[in-house]
């Protein structure tokens, strides 16, 4: 029996499209059928743009028939995190605040996807305004992990990671402010990359914490992720923090499959105490495979990482309190209480009370406090200095090694509801991913096995110096190949069958 088409990699779908054995319309329909069959249980999607996607697919098919030269990913379907604007398609950011809003413009990420002919199936669920590690903070209900529907799919990009693991799409877009691409990838056995800050344009990415936010590619394999990376990355004059440098050769790097002579640093502070035993077991086994592939493993110490979580939970909320001030009910989004008797300020207060959920309010208040006069130096100022120390720790480490590695998260997927009343316990999920955002460097998570104690996916994190994102693909591609030859199949092929409606 041949592999069902939805189980193929994006690279395989690309080859089938090129050879004419499948059309883009057939591929889109196969995924919509899958979504209809399983998304009632998974809830990865908030909105499906069937009409738009099928029109896009038909246009790719017509171009191919006419003999036009197409991008390799033309006609391959994708799930888009609902924090990026797509013209005319609802964009909620998982918030009541933006319920029903249809943006009048495309984000640059979407414009790049459309240009390549990637077919955008719909918008995926997320923690409200990307704040969370479980997708439980969505105003539209949680997403369920396809490996175990009673568990979280990670967050904030849990919709995108679940869509990949449930074979609802072969490609997805995520955004990562403190781990929102990598942690969902880790707990769903998928691959996710947070590129160097500035490598992918933030234009049309609804801002949470502007100095940390970065969109990136997600898929089931390292090569697929690399292919998507090259589509969305690149300089954009519409984002003043966009880096004006050529995009590296990610696809080439993912195909190298050889790490002889490379030096890989294990971050001492990001393993050990607080990490689940099975996570460490699989992480250490992956290190052995890299050694067998010719890499040299050394331990590296980054003493300031101890303060990264605290610094992050001051910097991100501070930027949040400023960024989310734009949701004032005046120009777009919902408006509550405008009965003619109330002032603009009263309407604003009522709208923000109703429109924002608990976690968003918590962070706005925390940020407002950290930025207020009298506390600014002690909180925000101190956090910014810690950020400098973390950057210097990375610089010192990268002077000695090519890439750094750690488990992506301390544990496998936890139960829905388990941590929702304990913000501090929830924040700890991001302890290993946050330092990357603070330093603006690249980070990848790829699956390195199932934890023996619970049979759930474990993520392996690779961190590369700024603007050297190809190194993640180089090491990640090599590790993935070694793992798959050990297992005899990719990890995602072991995922339990979902009930089909």
């Amino acid at each position: 029996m041949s592999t069902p088409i939805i189980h193929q990699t994006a690279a395989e779908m690309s080859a089938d499209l090129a050879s004419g054995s499948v059309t883009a319309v057939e591929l889109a329909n196969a995924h919509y059928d899958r979504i209809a069959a399983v998304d009632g249980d998974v809830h990865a999607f908030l909105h499906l743009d069937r009409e738009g996607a099928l029109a896009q697919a038909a246009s790719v098919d017509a171009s191919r028939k006419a003999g036009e030269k197409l991008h390799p990913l033309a006609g391959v379907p994708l799930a888009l995190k609902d924090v990026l604007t797509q013209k005319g398609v609802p964009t909620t950011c998982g918030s009541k605040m933006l319920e029903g809003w249809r943006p009048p413009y495309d984000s640059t990420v979407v414009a790049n996807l459309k240009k390549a002919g990637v077919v955008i199936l719909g918008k995926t669920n997320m923690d409200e305004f990307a704040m969370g590690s479980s997708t439980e903070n969505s105003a539209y209900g949680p997403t369920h992990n396809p490996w175990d529907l009673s568990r979280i799919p990670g967050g904030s990009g849990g919709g995108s990671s679940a869509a990949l693991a449930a074979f609802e799409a072969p490609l997805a877009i995520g955004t990562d402010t403190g781990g929102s691409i990598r942690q969902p990838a880790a707990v769903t056995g998928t691959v996710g990359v947070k590129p160097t800050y500035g490598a992918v344009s933030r234009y049309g990415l609804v801002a949470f914490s502007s100095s940390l936010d970065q969109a990136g590619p997600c898929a089931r394999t390292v090569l697929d992720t690399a292919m998507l990376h090259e589509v969305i990355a690149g300089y954009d004059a519409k984002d003043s923090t966009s880096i004006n440098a050529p995009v590296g050769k990610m696809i080439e790097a993912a195909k190298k499959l050889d790490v002889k002579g490379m030096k890989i640093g294990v971050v001492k502070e990001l393993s050990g105490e607080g990490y689940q035993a099975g996570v460490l077991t699989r992480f250490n086994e992956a290190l052995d495979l890299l050694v067998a592939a010719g890499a040299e493993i050394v331990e590296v110490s980054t003493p300031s990482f101890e303060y990264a979580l605290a610094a992050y939970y001051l910097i991100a909320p501070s930027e949040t309190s400023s960024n989310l001030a734009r949701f004032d009910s005046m120009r777009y989004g919902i408006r509550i209480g405008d009965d003619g008797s109330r002032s603009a300020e009263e309407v604003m207060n009522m709208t923000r009370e109703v429109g924002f959920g608990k976690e968003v309010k918590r962070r706005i208040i925390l940020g407002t406090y950290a930025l207020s006069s009298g506390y600014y130096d002690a909180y925000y100022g101190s956090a910014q200095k810690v950020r400098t120390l973390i950057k210097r720790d990375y610089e010192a480490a990268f002077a000695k090694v090519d890439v750094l590695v750690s488990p992506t998260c301390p544990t496998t997927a936890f139960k829905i509801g388990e941590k929702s009343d304990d913000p501090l316990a929830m924040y700890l999920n991001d302890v290993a991913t946050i330092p990357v955002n603070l330093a603006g460097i690249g980070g990848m998570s790829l699956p390195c096995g199932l934890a023996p104690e619970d049979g759930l996916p474990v993520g392996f994190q690779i961190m590369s110096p700024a603007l050297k994102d190809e190194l993640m693909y180089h090491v990640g591609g090599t590790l993935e190949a070694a793992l798959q030859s050990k297992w005899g199949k990719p990890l995602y092929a072991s995922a339990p069958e979902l009930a089909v409606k």
Partner: protein
Amino acid sequence: MAAISRDEVAHLARLARIEMTDAELDHLASEMDLILESVSRVQGVAGADIPPTSHAIAMQNVMRPDVVVPSLTPEEALSGAPAREEDRFKVPQILGEE
């Protein structure tokens, strides 16, 4: 002693333009206390000689040529407006009656 009082949280909510019920304020005040205790670890870690970092990839004065490019039409710009009047956003009263 609590790092932050309920009254302070109420003040912050007013500054942030978020109406909050008494129950919400009570809950948030106790949570904020725990969170502040946790994040205050950053204090005193870095010496006075350490400069703050606002952006990891430093850039300054990013300029582009001042060229007119197509932008949103009034219809597009107003497409998400909760209320509009002609080509304008219609908002509740901003000034007092007097």
